[in-house]
């Protein structure tokens, strides 16, 4: 049997091939030690527990979380032997774990982003008042998304939620949220607002929303952003860079669409006011029609029903008071009210409209003269009449 003799290069290559097949990537959680930058391009640190210390290496641009010795982190890395035959993890992603580390990383990053002006209130854009298309980035199976959808449905209608179904915790959540924001920003007809939501969880669960690159992607979005992550007490970097921050997913729903009850109220108010304006106007016109009609009646020797006219006038005035009361009523009743003041109904109640040959309503008899041809319009018929004489009142 022939012995297999390798060169050192071949040996390292063989072991690396074996590692690559067995463990393309592994997740390791431990404490950071001996953290240092090298020429601003590379990052070296140790990952350790009580027994073991693992050497780690990564490209500086891939590091999105400020690190310090003593912080607990979870890393995604590729196990490798180096050219010096030493074992090392080539790190792809780092996430702080544990409340203390997360807080530390958060503070460091917040300071950095603030220094760049990314948290500046002047950067914040308002959300559209009545969006028709809303981009949502969340996990469709999550309770947070269910809450959001429920509140949207309760408040508003006619909206399309375009949902990017992503993971909302762990390392994949970061890339997926970033990819989804970029997707929305690249559409030819973009959504009007992007809503990033995630329900409550532990500091570890929410850590993805403190990622520097995700924060920068949110800040760079052309489409206004609304972020509602965790509970009210939770503040993430994503919250801080968003145009608008919601306390929770439910709160995000309240901020992104108006309440139809509020708008129905506002509409009811307007409709009632229109009813009052129209009714008082028609009443004023009613008086003028009354006078004109009397004048015409005597001119064309036509006897109007005086009792009916007086009665109608009284009803007009009563109805006026009625509208004032109706102010407090709902929109539905106000619209019914509106129909009651339809001018055509006034004619039905015993008034007649007087028009000239061109069909214009006449509101003054002074412009008529003997021989003028007029049309008296009752509810059931129009009467062509000629003026005998005009006496100016």
């Amino acid at each position, binding site marked *: 049997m022939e012995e297999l003799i390798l060169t050192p290069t071949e040996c390292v290559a063989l072991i690396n091939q074996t590692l690559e097949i067995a463990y393309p990537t592994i997740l390791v959680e431990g404490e950071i030690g001996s953290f240092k930058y090298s020429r601003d391009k590379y990052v070296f640190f140790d990952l350790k527990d009580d027994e073991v210390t693992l050497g780690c290496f990564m490209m500086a641009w891939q590091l999105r979380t400020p690190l310090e010795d003593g912080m607990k982190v979870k890393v995604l890395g590729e196990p490798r032997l180096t050219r010096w035959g030493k074992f090392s993890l080539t790190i792809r992603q780092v996430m702080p774990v544990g409340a203390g580390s997360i807080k530390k990383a958060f503070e460091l990053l917040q300071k950095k982003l603030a220094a760049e002006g990314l948290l500046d209130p002047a950067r914040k854009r308002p959300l559209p008042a009545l969006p028709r298309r809303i981009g949502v980035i969340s996990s469709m199976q999550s309770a947070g998304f269910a809450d959001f959808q429920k509140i949207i449905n309760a408040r508003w*209608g006619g909206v399309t939620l375009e949902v*990017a179904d*992503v993971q909302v915790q762990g390392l994949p959540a970061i890339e997926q949220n970033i990819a989804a924001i970029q997707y929305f920003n690249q559409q030819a007809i973009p959504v009007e607002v992007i809503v990033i939501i995630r329900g409550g969880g532990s500091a570890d669960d929410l850590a993805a929303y403190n990622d520097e690159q995700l924060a920068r992607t949110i800040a760079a979005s052309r489409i206004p952003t609304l972020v509602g992550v965790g509970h009210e007490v939770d503040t993430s970097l994503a919250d801080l860079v968003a145009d608008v921050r919601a306390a929770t997913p439910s709160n995000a729903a309240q901020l992104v669409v108006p309440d139809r009850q509020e708008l129905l109220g506002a509409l009811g108010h*307007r409709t009632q006011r229109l009813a009052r304006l129209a009714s008082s106007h028609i009443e004023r016109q009613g008086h003028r029609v009354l006078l004109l009609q009397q004048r015409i009646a005597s001119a064309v020797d036509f006897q109007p029903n005086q009792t009916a006219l007086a009665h109608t006038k009284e009803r007009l005035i009563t109805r006026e008071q009625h509208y004032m009361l109706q102010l407090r009523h709902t929109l539905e009743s106000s619209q019914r009210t509106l129909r009651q003041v339809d001018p055509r109904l006034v004619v039905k109640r015993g008034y007649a409209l007087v028009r000239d040959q061109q069909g214009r309503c006449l509101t003054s008899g002074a412009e008529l003269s003997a021989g003028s041809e007029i049309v008296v319009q009752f509810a059931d018929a129009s009467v062509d009449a000629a003026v005998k004489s005009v006496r100016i009142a």
Partner: protein
Amino acid sequence: MKDQPQTFEQKMAELDAIMEWFDSDEVTLDESIKQFERGMKLSGELEKELQQAENKVEKIKQKFNKITS
């Protein structure tokens, strides 16, 4: 004149304009009937839009899974 259908906001603004018109002095009976009917139509349309209950949920087909671990 209007190729695009009016938005909710535009209709609301027109309704406000009609009420302002009623406050003005140039009110004539013919025009008031027209304005009144227009206001009523707008109000009905707005209410119908507000009563619209359905929201749509569309899941984006593109996958955002760049990383699997």
